[in-house]
């Protein structure tokens, strides 16, 4: 198996959108994500702690796991040659078990820097809706990801001054 055909920078334009990704969140989603990121804090696995101490509705997705979900969503689109350089996200509300969380994204920028690296800027939104919770924006993310400018280009080969995230 070789790396599948990537998204190429010249084919990307501002205002392009990426297909939504919807995931049904279960307690296992939350706990597995927390432990996978070695986050042992109880609000990510202990219902009583989350509800009685933190005062939230349930255990909720932890920060590093949200980062990993954003990465998965973005690189599902780019393919394996996509290399995330920078990602900033703001968590406005929590994602709880029972929610359906949906990722959506719009291209906000596409440029080739002076080293020849092709960058795409994305605004990614994570929405969630649960049986007892209305649809809401849980997190907003700005991501900058390098994608190949030609079929032979590989952003992962960049190092040092040639990698400017």
């Amino acid at each position, binding site marked *: *198996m*070789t*790396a*599948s055909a990537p998204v190429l920078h010249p084919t990307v334009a501002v205002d392009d959108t990426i297909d939504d990704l919807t*995931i049904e969140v279960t307690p296992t*989603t939350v706990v*597995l*994500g927390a*432990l*996978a*990121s*070695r*986050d*042992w804090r*109880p609000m990510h696995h202990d219902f009583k*702690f989350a509800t009685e*101490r*933190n*005062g939230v509705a349930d255990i909720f997705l932890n*920060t*590093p*796991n*949200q*980062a*990993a*979900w*954003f*990465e*998965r969503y973005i*690189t*599902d689109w780019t393919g*394996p*040659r996509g*290399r*995330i*350089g*920078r*990602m*900033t*996200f*703001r*968590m*406005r*509300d929590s994602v709880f078990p029972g929610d359906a969380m949906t990722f959506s994204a719009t291209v906000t920028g596409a440029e080739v820097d002076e080293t020849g690296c092709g960058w795409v800027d994305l605004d990614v939104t994570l929405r969630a809706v649960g049986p007892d919770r209305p649809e809401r924006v849980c997190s907003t993310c700005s991501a900058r990801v390098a994608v190949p400018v030609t079929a032979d280009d*590989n952003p*992962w080969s960049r*190092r040092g001054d040639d*990698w400017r*995230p």
Partner: protein
Amino acid sequence: MTAETETAEHDLPDDIVALIDVPQYERAATFDVERGYSYNTLAATQNGNPLFWDDEVADELTNGPIAVPTTLSLWMRPHFWEPGADGEQVALQVHFDLKARFDLPEAVMTDNTLILHEPVRPGDRISHRQVLRSVSGPKTTKLGSGRFWVIDIEYLNQRDELVGVESYTGFGYRRAGDTGGDAS
């Protein structure tokens, strides 16, 4: 909840002002980066990126396997318990120091920035340092009353190559009506 921070040194205790922009907790991980643990993140996020599952793809693109880039902080997170450790071991010690210093029992993270440089690879030993960048004045959100703070973390590999920089905004708070309780 609004994530807002500011450097409001005029209303901060002197000992907190003295910590701003000063590296703290410079330390190396007690374990190597391992490929097996990366699979937990891939499974947790149902991430089928062949870069992490197919050695031929990893050889072609990254000269061998790399860790999932957004797992950066995972390689510096301590074991929950280890021999000789006193109490729960936590990853972002400056965050917990601030909770204790301001007597704020609860806390959440509101913002996270990751800047990714040299890929992390199995066998690497990561080190980091934590830098408090700012602390807000008193704020009230729907969660309670407290303060926001921004903490940067710089990550290096064993060759002192920069592998990433992370920034967290945390909100330490006391719930409305809560006049007691231990820092968690």
